[in-house]
């Protein structure tokens, strides 16, 4: 494997990791506040649809982004209503949201574009274009690091950089701000937050809303950044992978970056080597496709210790039985 190949794989890993990273951070906010969310997938999906649809209709990817985030927020509101206000089962609510998104996107798409639930391909300003980072060209001559900068870091769409910035931002919000302190507290012990005179409901809604925004970005990235149209079910299980990454990351922002990047990397590698000839045996393509998942299990079993989820996670806050 030469250096260029490595760079290309890293480049691909970064792209593949971005939607996972958004979704993973989305889940992080929600679960850190004690609200489990297996509806990441659904929120991403609906955001993907509305961002593509709006971007196409208005010709502006920014409006598309806005619409995607808004749609995702709407589903978040449902999740909040069910799991915070009415103290319902958070898992059921998440399942329902996934179904809802999967049905609604196609249904609305059918009547909007008459294209079988897809949106037309996006062009020009209706999609995000790659951004060349400053000096990428000049620096690419620098040995080793230059190409790394130019090939891997530069040239992605806006949202990739947003996602990367979201990691320190999340860390900062979580650990350096009042809001973050309260958010973490409410996921650990809502009664402590309540008796400290802070609204548990308000905090949790805020967390769920942030989750909605980030899922919205994830979906918009899929449809208008990485791809250029909406195709039904195009999230293809990434919401679940993000969930796995979240546990992998032990609900921490930097680890979330590493975990999602690892998933991206493993997928990029298996993309690059559809089947591997080991001389003695040729590993079939199915094996290579399962490889990211197999390696995840191996890494999990070998290197990652027990992950302690937020203690109040999944439990509605009920004061009076």
């Amino acid at each position, binding site marked *: 494997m030469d250096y260029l190949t490595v760079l290309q794989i890293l480049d691909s890993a970064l792209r593949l990791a971005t939607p996972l990273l958004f979704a993973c951070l989305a889940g992080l906010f929600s679960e850190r506040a004690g609200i489990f969310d297996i509806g990441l997938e659904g929120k991403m999906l609906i955001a993907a649809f509305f961002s593509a649809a709006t971007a196409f209709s208005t010709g502006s990817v920014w409006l598309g982004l806005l619409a995607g985030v808004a749609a995702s927020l709407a589903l978040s509101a449902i999740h909040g209503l069910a799991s915070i206000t009415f103290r319902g089962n958070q898992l059921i609510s998440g399942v329902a949201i996934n179904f809802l998104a999967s049905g609604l996107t196609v249904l609305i798409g059918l009547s909007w574009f008459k294209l079988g639930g897809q949106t037309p391909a996006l062009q020009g300003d209706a999609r995000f274009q790659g951004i060349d980072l400053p000096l990428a060209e000049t620096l690419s001559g620098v040995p080793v690091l230059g190409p790394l900068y130019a090939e891997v870091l530069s040239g992605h769409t806006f949202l990739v950089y947003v996602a990367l910035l979201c990691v320190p931002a999340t860390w900062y919000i979580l650990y350096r701000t009042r809001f973050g302190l309260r958010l973490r507290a409410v996921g650990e012990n809502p009664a402590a937050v309540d008796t400290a005179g802070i609204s548990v409901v308000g905090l949790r809604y805020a967390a769920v809303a942030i989750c909605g925004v980030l899922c919205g970005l994830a979906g918009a990235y899929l449809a208008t950044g990485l791809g250029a149209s909406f195709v039904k079910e195009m999230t293809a299980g990434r919401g679940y992978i993000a969930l796995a990454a979240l546990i992998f990351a032990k609900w921490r922002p930097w680890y979330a970056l590493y975990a999602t990047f690892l998933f991206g990397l493993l997928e990029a590698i298996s993309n690059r080597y559809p089947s591997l000839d080991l001389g003695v045996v040729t590993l079939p393509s199915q094996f290579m496709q399962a490889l990211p998942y197999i390696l995840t299990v191996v890494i999990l079993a070998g290197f990652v210790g*027990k992950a302690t989820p937020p203690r109040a996670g999944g439990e509605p806050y009920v004061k009076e039985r």
Partner: protein
Amino acid sequence: MEQLPKWADLIVVPLVGLIMAFVLSMLMVLVTGHDPMQALKLMVSGALGSTYGWGYTLYYATNFIFTGLAVAVAFHASLFNIGGEGQAALGGLGVAIVCLFIPWPHWSIALVAASLAAGLFGALWALIPAYLQAKRGSHIVITTIMFNFIAASLLNYVLVNQLRPKGSMDPATAKFPEPSHLPSLGDMLNAVGIPFAKGTPANVTLIVALLACVFVYYLIWRTRLGYQLRAFGKSQPAAVYAGINPVKITIITMMISGALAGLMAINNVMGEAERLILGSVEGAGFIGIAVALMGRSHPIGILFAALLFGALYQGGAELGLWTSIPRELVIVIQALVILFTGALDNMVRSLVAKVLVRPKKVEV
């Protein structure tokens, strides 16, 4: 929280939730330019209005009973098994191997053998995540998700490269030999003089599923193992205090859960398709999560929830057949049903309570 009489909690609340879900769904039908009354009638009569409809409803319900029970058993031990999809797929592989390579004299023997194989394969597929959870603390949610993907790859490989008859286009095994074909519900009922539509896929596996419900009921509430796994699920420190081995319980519970998911294969693989096709589980493993949650992890609840989902599937199929309502609408209806009877049940409950209960206080 308002106190409702038990009957209201068990019957009125889900019913009202269901009605709300349907009202909303029919509004959607209306908005998309179709006739909601016709749609509703089609769905209900299509799913429940004839033995033909029941033949399909019960078939789907059978699948969901198995996966629902699988999720529920694990839930009782506080283990979230999202791996039903993969375990059921592996169960299918077990069934296929048993049915293809062993000549069975009679379906009943084949059924027993296939059930064992399905259960075993499903259980083994759950074993690794269980072991990793118990011994290494690897989160069962991740590992079971991963194992779903791995199972899909494994089946893809096996079906395309190993079990597919030469020259067949279809990534599926050959048809199982005749003696291993299970009698359909229609055949069985007609044999005892009860008229029931023939040619529907509900089959003798339904009885196995009902037995599984009974089994799970006894397992959870009447056996020592059930007692221990529930105790473990409620409090791990207490389980250790009682001398319950966490590793053993985790592994046994997950294996039972996996076996139940695997057993689904005798319904769809052996009973219906009579061969193993690619993607045979069709998401039943995930529906099982909804079914278990809505059925409150109790076999009777699961039975009803599975029936509800079975009816939605079959009613949806009828909608697809006779109207131009897109099939995605059925998915939306499913979503709304899950939402209103599952996640928003407290909202429904408080509405019902407002109507039903005049506040009265009991002195202590």
